């Protein structure tokens, strides 16, 4: 195998594993702000217990996010050195800004969030929670801005330089607010809120099913489903805007998402299907003309298809099609689940029916799979470009790194990450089984 493919596999694997955790930090960050805010307002002790329980879970997910996140920053240099030289002027600024504006804020106040209960008063502790949540969102802003620039490069020019050609920033704000940045950022953040919300929903439903920690579970479930519903509906809206943006700026990606082959013809939208790339046919259930209608308000409006692009400029179709449809299907399912959840959870008496609780226990997988599938759509759909229309992925790889070296690191990453994932699940499971601590109902000395 060649270095490019190996490096792509390694990057995909390490980013996919990393991306299990940041959405949880972002989503649980919002959950913690809500719970601790409720505690400060009402002073009902159970909100303190809820906050402290979810802070412990947050600590675990955050640690894994940090441990696997530093890999991502280093990998641009180790595996994509030619890319790094080419884009450092543009892309590097966003990464450095993430460090300065997001990571310091997050890690500094995280110390207070985790260990500061007895060191500061409740208001300052709440402020720390707010800052950690804000920091997690800042981090999302800069990294999605950087990624969006790779999708829809703007605010730069290609210039000759001593060591070779490179992209140079001509307009910093045009780079930051590149055409896809805002819609991709909101869609990503809402996906992260879903991840946090449905983890809370799932654990609460599990307690209710087993008749444990009933009061804790009911109140946590309410916070979870409410946030889950807002985020799920928001994901649908931002997803729609995002798809429109893709049709304008990355038509080849959009064509792959719906496996639309004709160069210019009305396009259907599939509910699900299997792409036969040789015969250019999709076996599945389609809504005729729906894609044309959604994009242009007219079911017969032509949509640019894959044939309009040279074969070497087309992304892989099957992967993008399946990942995209999986994401959409899960997104719709989560809207339904959170509607049902809100309906039952907001009733004053009784608990949701058992069938719903069972589904809600499983719901934690939904946003995680959808987030992964969404990124797969975005990144595989960008191929064969590393910077859309400007630099090919094969041109971005490190020239001084051998295939053997990447095989060595890929094997190590695979083994270590499997171990970490098993340990994470084991520790999360034991935290959940252990449940909220009774002593967290009583206030800290500083809070008395």
């Amino acid at each position, binding site marked *: 195998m060649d270095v490019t493919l190996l490096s792509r596999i390694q990057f995909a694997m390490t980013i996919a594993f990393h991306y299990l955790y940041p959405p949880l930090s972002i989503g649980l960050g919002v959950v913690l702000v809500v719970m601790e805010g409720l505690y400060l307002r009402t002073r009902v002790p159970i909100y303190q217990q809820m906050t*402290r329980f979810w802070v412990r879970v947050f*600590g*675990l997910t955050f*640690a*894994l996010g*940090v*441990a696997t996140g*530093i*890999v991502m*920053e*280093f990998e*641009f*240099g*180790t*595996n994509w*050195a030619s890319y*790094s*030289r080419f884009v*450092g*002027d*543009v892309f*590097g*600024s966003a*990464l*450095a*800004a993430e*460090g*300065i*504006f997001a*990571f*310091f*804020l997050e*890690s*500094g106040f995280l*110390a*207070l969030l*985790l*260990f*500061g209960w007895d060191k*500061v008063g409740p208001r300052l502790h709440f402020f720390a929670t707010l800052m950690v949540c804000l920091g997690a969102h800042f981090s999302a802003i800069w990294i999605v801005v950087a990624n969006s620039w790779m999708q829809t490069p703007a605010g730069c020019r290609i210039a000759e330089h001593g*060591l*070779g050609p*490179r992209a*140079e*920033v001509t307009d*910093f704000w045009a780079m930051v607010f590149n055409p896809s940045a805002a819609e991709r950022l909101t869609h990503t953040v809402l996906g992260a809120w879903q991840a946090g919300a449905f983890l809370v929903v799932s654990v609460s439903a599990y307690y209710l099913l087993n008749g444990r920690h009933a009061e804790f579970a009911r109140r946590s479930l309410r916070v979870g489903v409410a946030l889950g519903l807002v985020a799920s509906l928001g994901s649908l809206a931002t997803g729609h805007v995002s798809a429109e943006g893709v049709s304008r700026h990355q038509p080849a990606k959009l064509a792959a998402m719906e496996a639309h082959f004709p160069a210019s013809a009305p396009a259907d939208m599939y509910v699900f299907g299997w792409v036969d790339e040789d015969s250019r046919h999709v076996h599945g259930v389609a809504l005729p003309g729906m894609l044309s209608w959604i994009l242009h308000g007219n079911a017969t409006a032509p949509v640019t298809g894959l044939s309009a692009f040279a074969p070497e400029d087309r992304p892989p179709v099957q992967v993008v099609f399946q990942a995209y449809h999986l994401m959409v299907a899960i997104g719709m399912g989560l809207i339904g689940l959170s509607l049902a959840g809100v309906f039952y959870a907001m009733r004053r008496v009784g608990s949701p029916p058992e069938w719903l609780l069972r589904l809600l226990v499983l719901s934690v997988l939904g946003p995680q799979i959808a987030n992964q599938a969404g990124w797969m759509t975005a990144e595989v759909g960008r191929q064969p470009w590393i910077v859309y229309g400007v630099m090919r992925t094969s041109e971005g790889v*490190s*020239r*001084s*790194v051998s295939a053997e*070296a990447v095989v*060595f*690191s890929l094997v*190590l990453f695979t083994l*270590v990450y499997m171990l*970490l994932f098993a*340990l994470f699940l084991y*520790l999360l499971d*034991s935290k959940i089984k252990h449940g909220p601590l009774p*002593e967290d109902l009583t206030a800290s000395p500083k809070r008395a």
Partner: protein
Amino acid sequence: MTIDLNTIWFLLVGALLAGYAVLDGFDLGVGILHLFVTRDEERRVFINAIGPVWDGNEVWLVTGGGALFAAFPAVYAGVFSGFYPAMILLLFALIFRAVAIEFRSKQPMAWWRRTWDVSFSAASFLGSFLMGVAFGNVIRGIPLDVHGEYLGGFTTLLNPYALLAGVTTVALFAMHGSIYLVLKTDSAIQAKVRAWVNTTIIVFVICYATTTMATLVYLPHMGDHFKAHPWTFVLPVATMLAIANVPREILHGRDWRAFLSSCAAVFGLMGLVGFGMYPNLVRGTDPATSLSVYSAASSDGTLTTMLIIVGIGMPLVLAYTISIYWIFRGKVKLDSMSY
């Protein structure tokens, strides 16, 4: 030496990496010394001494890396891809260190805790050593082509000078960490740790003296700026005085001053390296291929924008850092939220 935009960025990236060495240096040092105490409670005190701050300290590395990427992409790309296997090992060291700190306290079994103790300590040792080796190579010079691509192999990196730099870094962080532990512990544990300080200082001074001699003999160019501007000998002298001051303050029980002295020593050493290297960030075996603040830099536009970002961000960063260290000042006390 003129103070232009590129030089300012050399100083800023240097300041971030020096900030990293000063801050993460002591918590890596605590990790290196971790297995020298054996009781669970002692090990918990060690980990909780760095518990609230180690993550923030590591952000200095992440941000230093980001700043290097933005300001000097050719250095970031050339060194990270060139030192590939070493960088991957460094990443594993950082991963295992982070999860060991988080995982250790989560289960009570002795084997569980022992596993993470060993992993925490080995990762701290390996991480410090590899960073030292990388620095040693960058100072000594590595084979580069005209595009800034590394031409050597993994074994090229394992030369005696770089290995010596690795050992010296481990010794430096162990010394720095032991002094930090004196500051954060009390009673019996503190007495134990206090007794280590002198040993770590002696080991470090031997390493440092050897590295300095090796540098002067094999890499005389590192002394050029000092020869050209004799007044700059203030810098190595001040660094030596800072190191010598540590045992003096410890002897008088002024632990805070001892720690500040040690911080000054780490900062001074980074300054010495930076001053000796300038204007190069990476020395090429053929000096014409060296990556300098000019050949490796981003455009002036980006350097200016980044300077604004740093101007807004750094005061905030310093404010959080100082507040957190202030709030968590004093001796470690274990409670239900501790590691």
